[in-house]
């Protein structure tokens, strides 16, 4: 690709890490093919690629978990053989994992020193360790309490503990693996500040991500890999998200989802004065009113924890409503059991696909009939007809482009994007009057996101109602026909995405513009 170049304009850079022409195969499957990544001192370098493009493989090679078949690794200009993670640690490479490796009922300090305990006279010197952790925390502006228990602190704080862990071990190069996937927008902002603080203290950072916005905001350069192949490295200042996306996916990607004007008809879902309690018995949804019409997509937008989860659980029957009514096509479905809700014509793409959406140990084919298994032709006089089940599965796998070796592959073995496509296929195939899509694109790459958005809009165009819950403002703005802002368990405003701005939504979500009139 002509417009991809290597770190133009900077001469004689000091590279702290160079991975040159790395190749890694697994039983004939090429996970990395001729990938080159050069990390300059003091930069934030993004490693961009779709799910399954080979980002993790490359980092595992750097971390000594895999040995490359070809290529060379240099640290500070010297060729090295990284045979195991300890060696990587010794070379000053630290990894902040996506899934935290923390002991829940240990304190912050105990977690940080784990495996590397300072001893005095046969005892662990916790006091000294605490002092050092506190110093490091202050130096980088992490604001972590060394004596707090992991189970008592937020996810964002836990991530900082992971960062401290690498710093405590003397890391000069930090690898962040999808660090923002689990964070709230506020925590993301703070993380970005922390990363900048790390850079100003002379550290270098590799950021593994598929979120283009973050790259544009914090990174200096970005290395793109696609299907295992190194595509090249570009300066962030000389590129834009569209270009990055096309490099990553290998074709043009539209961010602005194409859609025609909505043609809303009658109300499909009517919610009146709905009150729902959270597991602790505290009201999470408080007298909420909402209408969703046939042929439109309503986007629910709000800061996490304002009753979104409880609202959806109440509609789908997973949680009992404490008050109010939910009506579907004029029929009262308040506090129906999940099966009756499903049978009434509701499809539900759940927030957590591993927890609710799939039985991971079942084959992907069998998962395709998770709600309909008891109906003909899948079940007949008490016996399953797996032939019919797999026939159906094959059809959906093809239709929704689920990439799986076969329909009998365990759901667990599929990538997140393909698991999600399978769920969406299953839910849309039942052709529900109301489709609830809760964070349908969480953790997915742009290619899959585009596909899913198209499907939601298709559903709308077929005259169905769609309720979209998302924490990505871009997604809400792009896909919805109307946006309902939820704050403290109430819909505080319903706005037209074409007439509103992210700033206005932000204010509404924060509850500071409560009572704004509906301008739809």
């Amino acid at each position, binding site marked *: 690709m002509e417009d991809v170049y290597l770190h133009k304009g900077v001469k004689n850079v000091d590279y702290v890490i160079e991975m040159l022409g790395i190749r890694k195969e697994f039983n004939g499957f090429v996970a990395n093919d001729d990938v080159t990544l050069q990390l300059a001192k003091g930069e934030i370098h993004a490693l961009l690629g779709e799910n399954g493009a080979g980002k993790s493989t490359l980092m595992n090679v750097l971390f000594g978990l895999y040995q490359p078949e070809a290529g060379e690794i240099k640290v500070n200009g010297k060729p090295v053989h990284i045979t195991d993670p300890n060696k990587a640690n010794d070379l000053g490479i630290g990894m902040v994992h996506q899934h935290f490796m923390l002991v829940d009922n240990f304190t912050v300090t105990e977690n940080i020193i784990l495996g590397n305990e300072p001893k005095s006279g046969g005892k662990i010197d916790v006091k000294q360790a605490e002092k050092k952790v506190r110093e490091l925390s202050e130096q980088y502006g992490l604001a972590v309490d060394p004596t707090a228990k992991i189970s008592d602190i937020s996810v964002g704080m836990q991530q900082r503990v992971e960062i401290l862990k690498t710093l405590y071990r003397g890391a000069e190069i930090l690898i962040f693996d999808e660090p923002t996937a689990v964070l709230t927008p506020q925590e993301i902002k703070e993380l970005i500040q922390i990363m900048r603080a790390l850079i100003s203290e002379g550290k270098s950072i590799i950021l593994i991500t598929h979120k283009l916005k973050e790259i544009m905001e914090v990174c200096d350069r970005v290395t793109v890999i696609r299907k295992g192949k190194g595509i090249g490295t570009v300066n962030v200042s000389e590129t834009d998200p569209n270009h990055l996306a096309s490099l990553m996916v290998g074709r043009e990607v539209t961010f602005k989802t194409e859609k025609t004007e909505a043609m809303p008809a009658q109300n499909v879902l009517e919610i009146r004065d709905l009150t729902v309690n959270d597991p602790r018995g505290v009201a999470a949804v408080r007298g909420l009113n909402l209408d969703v019409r046939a042929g439109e997509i309503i986007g629910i937008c709000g800061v996490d924890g304002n009753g979104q989860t409880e609202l959806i659980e109440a509609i*789908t029957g*997973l949680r009992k409503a404490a008050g109010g009514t939910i009506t579907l096509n004029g029929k009262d479905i308040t506090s129906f*059991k*999940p*099966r*009756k*809700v*499903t049978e009434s014509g509701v499809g*539900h793409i*759940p927030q957590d696909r591993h*927890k*609710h*959406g*799939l*039985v*991971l*140990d*079942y084959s992907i084919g*069998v998962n395709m009939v*998770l*709600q309909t*298994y*008891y109906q003909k032709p899948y*079940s007949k006089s*008490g*016996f*399953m007809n797996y032939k019919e089940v797999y026939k159906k599965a094959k059809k959906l796998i093809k239709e929704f482009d689920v990439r799986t070796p076969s329909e009998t592959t365990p759901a667990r073995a599929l990538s997140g994007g393909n698991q999600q496509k399978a769920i969406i296929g299953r839910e849309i195939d039942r052709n529900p009057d109301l489709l609830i899509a809760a964070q349908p694109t969480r953790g997915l790459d742009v290619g899959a996101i585009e596909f899913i958005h198209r499907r939601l809009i298709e559903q709308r165009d077929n005259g169905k109602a769609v309720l979209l819950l998302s924490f990505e403002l871009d997604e809400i703005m792009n896909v919805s026909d109307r946006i309902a802002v939820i704050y403290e368990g109430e819909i505080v405003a319903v706005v037209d995405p074409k007439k509103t701005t992210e700033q206005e939504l932000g204010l509404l979500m924060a509850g500071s513009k409560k009572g704004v009139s509906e301008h739809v």
Partner: protein
Amino acid sequence: MSKKWTAFAVPVVSVLLGLFAGAIIMLISGNNPAAGYAALWNGAFGDLFYTGETLRQMTPYVFAGLAVAFAFRTGLFNIGVEGQLLVGWLASVWVGVAFELPKIIHLPLAILAGALAGAVWGFIPGFLKARLRVHEVIVTIMMNYTALHVTNHLIRNVISDGSDATDAIKETASLRSPFLENITDFSSLHNGIYLAAIAALIMWLMLEKTTLGYELRAVGYNQQASEYAGMSVNRNIILSMVISGAFAGIGGAMQGLGTFGNMFINSGFSGIGFDGIAVALLGGNTAIGVVLAALLFGSLKVGSLNMPLESGIPNELVEIVIALIIFFVASSYMITWLLGRFKKKEAK
């Protein structure tokens, strides 16, 4: 390495390793392992009589193993098979003693009573788990002791007048089979062995082929997803414990209607229910695996009786071998790793 192959290879290798380690222990204790294992083999399959005894011993193991495996496959750990087996035993014997009926009704009724008693004993922990989230392991352990003492009390004070055993069951309720006794040189092999085979088939059908099995396994794998899909998690938990308990109860009926023809005061647990856990583990919680593992356990138990007679080696040694086999199955990761290394070398 294919998954199926591993599932088969791990238990087989475990058994071989267990026998090998047993041989080393025999050597250390100054015995001849060859003579020891020859005596074990002769005691289990040496002639028709011993083979019959082995198959007879295997019968309750199949049921106990199926009970544990069924619960396990649906996400529950039924430690209470021992207790369910005891109440099933007593219930079947009681029907066998108390009624006067034609065989075609009496025998099925007695077996059904055993199944029902076991099911009730399984229902209680299932219900407590579903309603109050009490862990089934705790409840089933307690239910084992309850079963032991309740059956002892009933035998001594209700069914008999202070005697140590019930009366013998009526001929019409008996599983005894002159045919099987004849062809096995008058061993105590009875018709229960057929029922064991049928039970294994039923368990396989139920889990793999029926709609109920689809639901039960889904709940076992992922309760949240099952609830999301509209299944009743609580109903399935109870049902799973009831079915598991029924298997165990029939296992008890095999003892009462087949092997012993009565029930007697037990000073302690029969051990069959607990061995059932080992059988299920060794059999990979599958129906066919349980049958094979039960055969192994039956032959080890029966064969071991011959070891002191023929080779002078104490039969407790077989207990050690069994323990070692379980140890190796439980450390299956190690065996998978070993097999992997082995395969790699072959490839080179």
